[in-house]
């Protein structure tokens, strides 16, 4: 057991800071609500009934625990360490996003809020939010950049089937960042009755903390499953990082296991040396956006630069503040993977494992050609397959020049 003073798992501090990152950079209108949310979250965390309801929904509605799977053919293919998958793509709604949505909607209900809003990039968080709103009978408005609406039509229709109103956002590059701006504008105008279900481990405190806590079910399960199946902890964890919720969910329960290395995979787009990427740690610098201080893609005047990634879920110029901290202290390494490498890994996983991964998760898989051979056959690499790729088949077909 690591003592508290040396633990990586005691962040954030009482003001919501992870080192210099995080915090509460919001308009005054939102501050009282943010403080209320924090108070309510502390109460919920200490309430066994809240945990029981969360756990029950996780088991019977989401379908947890998600399997731990040995990817035998990919392991053979790379000829290095053993490759294992945490199968978050098998969750209800097809991604890890539902874990967080269940937790947040229970908080919203506790706080007496009667209307839910959310932003979405790839549409996975929008679908998960629409799903829990349907399940609990709350009206739901999803903000989505119109570029993403165009490239994620199946998820747009799913959200509508689930009863959500999808509002296309036309500002900026019309992607995730702009959807988040518009959701915050809605929130500030409707704070009295509206709960904002933020989809990633970012935004003003306490969102990065509570999203991480809800998503930590991934790492807690994986840690127990690994020990049970192999008697050991994995040697390396791999997860894609946009805002970073699936990655922090996997990493956090392992942070105090010094023998476990961790790599977060950022979206390198056309390459971090170009102006078309979404690798905010590799290619950005600290700044303030969307309620928190974190690494951002920005110019010399602090104006935010548009991100680019083939994966709509990673197409964001910032990252959750805890990742910024873990990057700065060196506990987690971050590696950019380009669009073409992710596409290659996407296809390889389809053909060798019979699993169509989300393009987000394909970024994590695309680190394997670079890393697997550095590990021995008795060593284990655990990849978070955070979502399924059915939503991405149109984007992939387009990139491969195929007609559907």
């Amino acid at each position, binding site marked *: 057991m690591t003592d508290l003073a040396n633990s990586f798992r005691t962040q954030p501090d009482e003001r919501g800071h992870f080192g210099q990152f995080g915090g509460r950079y919001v*308009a*005054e209108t939102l*501050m009282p609500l943010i403080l209320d949310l924090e108070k309510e979250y502390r109460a919920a965390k200490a309430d066994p009934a809240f945990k029981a309801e969360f756990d029950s929904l996780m088991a019977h509605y989401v379908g947890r625990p998600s399997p731990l799977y040995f990817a035998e053919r990919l392991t053979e293919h790379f000829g290095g360490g053993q490759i294992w998958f945490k199968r978050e793509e098998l969750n209800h709604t097809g991604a890890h996003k539902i874990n967080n949505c269940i937790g947040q909607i229970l908080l919203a209900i506790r706080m007496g809020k009667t209307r839910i809003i959310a932003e979405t990039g790839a549409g996975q968080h929008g679908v998960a939010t629409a799903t829990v709103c349907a399940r609990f009978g709350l009206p739901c408005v999803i903000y989505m950049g119109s570029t993403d609406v165009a490239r994620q039509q199946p998820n747009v229709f799913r959200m509508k089937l689930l009863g959500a109103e999808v509002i296309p956002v036309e500002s900026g590059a019309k992607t995730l960042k702009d959807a988040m*701006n518009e959701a915050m504008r809605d929130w500030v*105008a409707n704070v009295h009755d509206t709960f904002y279900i933020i989809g990633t481990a970012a935004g003003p405190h306490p969102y990065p903390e509570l999203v991480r806590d809800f998503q930590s079910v991934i790492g807690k399960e994986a840690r127990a499953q690994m020990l049970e199946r192999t008697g050991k902890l994995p040697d390396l964890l791999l997860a894609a990082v946009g805002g970073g919720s699936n990655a922090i969910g996997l990493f956090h329960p392992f942070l105090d296991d010094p023998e476990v290395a961790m790599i977060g995979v950022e979206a390198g787009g056309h390459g971090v040396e170009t102006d078309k990427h979404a690798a905010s740690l590799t290619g950005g610098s600290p700044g303030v*956006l*969307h309620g928190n201080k974190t690494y951002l893609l920005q110019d010399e005047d602090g104006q935010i630069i548009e991100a680019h990634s083939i994966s709509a879920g990673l197409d964001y110029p910032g990252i959750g503040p805890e990742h910024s901290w873990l990057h700065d202290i060196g506990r987690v390494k971050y590696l950019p993977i380009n669009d073409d490498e992710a596409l290659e890994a996407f296809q390889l996983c389809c053909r060798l494992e019979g699993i169509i991964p989300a393009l987000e998760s394909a970024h994590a898989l695309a680190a394997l050609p670079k890393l697997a051979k550095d590990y021995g056959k008795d060593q284990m690499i655990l990849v978070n397959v955070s979502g399924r790729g059915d939503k991405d088949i149109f984007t992939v077909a387009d990139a491969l020049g195929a007609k559907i």
Partner: protein
Amino acid sequence: MSRFESAFGKGHPALVCFITAGDGDTAANLDALVAGGADVIELGMPFTDPMADGPAIQAANLRALAKGTTTADILALAAGFRARHPEVPLVLMGYANPMIHRGADWFAAEAAKAGVDGVICVDIPPEEDAELGPQLRGAGLNMIRLATPTTDAARLPAVLEGSGGFLYYVSVAGITGKQQAALASIEEAVTRLKASTDLPVAVGFGVRTPEQAEAIARVADGVVVGSAFIDIVAEHGENAAAPLKELTAALAKAVHNARETVA
């Protein structure tokens, strides 16, 4: 006496006018506001992600950035304004990231050098004051804070701590340029705020017409108008000075005389 004390000490309510730096012929537009009777100027610093702003000011931000407006350009506009108008208080208003990017000390020193009197930063609440507040105050500038309908009595002391110049009451929980709050709620809020501070209280968000401005000026020390000016710049582009002056004059007349028309 500071410029703010003079501006709010003229014996009538003050008209506070907002335009976005780099949108249209900003120097000429600022002169037009002063010529029309503006008592305080807020110069908006454009940002790529203006989360608290409605469509009009969002568009103004993007127009300014599309023209290549930089932080250096904004400081030069401020310095030029100060040279031409030694008496009119000038406030820079914007979002945290462009203000702290080169370091809050740098920004505070440059703003002070340019003759700026105060700064409004939308997304630095009292809880994050350390990011910018001490640096501004150290450079002799006022950190002008926002109070909102959600700022309750328990929070108000924290909002007032370290704030200066005037207190900006955001009359609606929402974004700029949209609906206006009911007058009764504004009056109640201003009374409550003034019981806790000696700072003048200016009221803004959703104020567009001389009639609205006059009604608010009866109960507040100042009235802030923004989106209505921004709409004029959007419509007239580089030639907005004359219509800006015209609207400012109408607003100034309404605001300055508001208390005299009440029997």
